């Protein structure tokens, strides 16, 4: 049985999909949240100088997509077979492109630039992305096969993050995606986590 230690700042950010996956898989892990002041000492001990990192069986992993994929495999949520796994990877890559833009808008300090980035997200990036992925999700509400994979969970999370920045009913007229969100939220492990997780600003 492996021991898992996830380290990130005190927020959802780029660690939350991993936490959702641990929850969905019913896998115990240490959820370490550090304060800004602790970061400089830890930074040089990470592979790429950023968080999250996952320490498992003496190995340190970084890069949030990598960590999430690894936990998805351990939780049996990566997809069945190479081709399905690739389909899941593909959806997650698109999700991550969008998340990058959400993060950029979130961290932008110049109010005018921030406004422009949010506008671009709301009017361009999000609608295009949602139109594309509505076609990739099936009517049962799964991106891959007929059961939950990490691609569904990653989608759920980017919508949560983007929705915070661009309020609105983004899934109006998107029945497949609406089903995906329901499937994720009603997964027992995830439902429990969503209720219990710390409330944080990001």
């Amino acid at each position: 049985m492996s021991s898992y230690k996830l380290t990130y700042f005190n927020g959802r950010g780029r660690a939350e999909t991993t936490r959702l996956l641990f929850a969905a898989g019913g896998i115990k892990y240490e959820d370490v949240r550090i304060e800004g002041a602790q970061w400089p000492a830890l930074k040089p001990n990470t592979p790429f100088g950023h968080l999250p990192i996952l320490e498992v069986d003496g190995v340190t992993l970084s890069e949030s997509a990598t960590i999430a994929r690894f936990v998805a495999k351990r939780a049996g949520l990566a997809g069945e077979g190479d081709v399905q796994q690739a389909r899941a990877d593909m959806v997650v890559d698109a999700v991550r492109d969008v998340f990058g833009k959400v993060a950029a808008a979130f961290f932008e300090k110049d109010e005018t630039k921030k406004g422009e980035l949010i506008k671009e997200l709301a009017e361009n990036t999000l609608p295009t992305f949602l139109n594309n992925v509505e076609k990739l999700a099936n009517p049962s509400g799964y991106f891959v096969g007929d059961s939950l994979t990490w691609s569904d969970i990653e989608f759920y999370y980017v919508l949560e993050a983007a929705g915070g920045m661009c309020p609105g009913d983004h899934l109006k007229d998107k029945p497949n995606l609406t089903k995906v969100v329901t499937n994720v939220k009603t997964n027992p492990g995830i439902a429990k986590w969503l209720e219990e997780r710390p409330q944080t600003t990001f």
Partner: protein
Amino acid sequence: MPSYKLTYFKGKGRAELARLLFAAGGIEYEDVRVEGEQWAELKPKTPMGQLPILEVDGTMICQGKAIGRLIAKEAGMAGKTHLNQARADMICDGLDDLGMKLMPLFTEKDENKKEEMKKEMTEKTLPSFFDLFEKLASAEGYFVGDSLTWADVNFFAFLGVISGFNQGDHLQGYVNLNKVMGNVSSNPGIAKWLKERPVTQF
């Protein structure tokens, strides 16, 4: 044996990783290169309106890394355990991060600004990334374990993009990274492809 059809523009770009991996694995595939009207016609049929796409046994996969990972698995170059696979994923994600940082430089049209950005790239951005990557590569010249994985091939492909853009010995002094490059270019399948591949602008 699945049938593979890779479609991209007439260049290396985001498809070269796949081509190098097909070569390394000795896997036959159809190397389709499109432009102009052909692309306009194909675009709405792709999952996300982008290239490259890989068609395998009737399923379409997009996103360069997802495609790379799938071929790496077929070629036995993804990493032997979940943990090793994650280490390979991590390296590839790190390369993507670097690619994102360099994107503005590739698309900048103002010649003066471009020169400034090139200077920033060669004097700051690249060295700080290569310092990190040097520590992640082994003395034998592998990012993961003791044999070639797609992480090594991806690094090689990435250096190709940089060199195409800015001549110079970017890896001077980086012993492990130079070994990685040597391991990739001397892989028999890859060596043959490097000799035979079309010479293109990008």
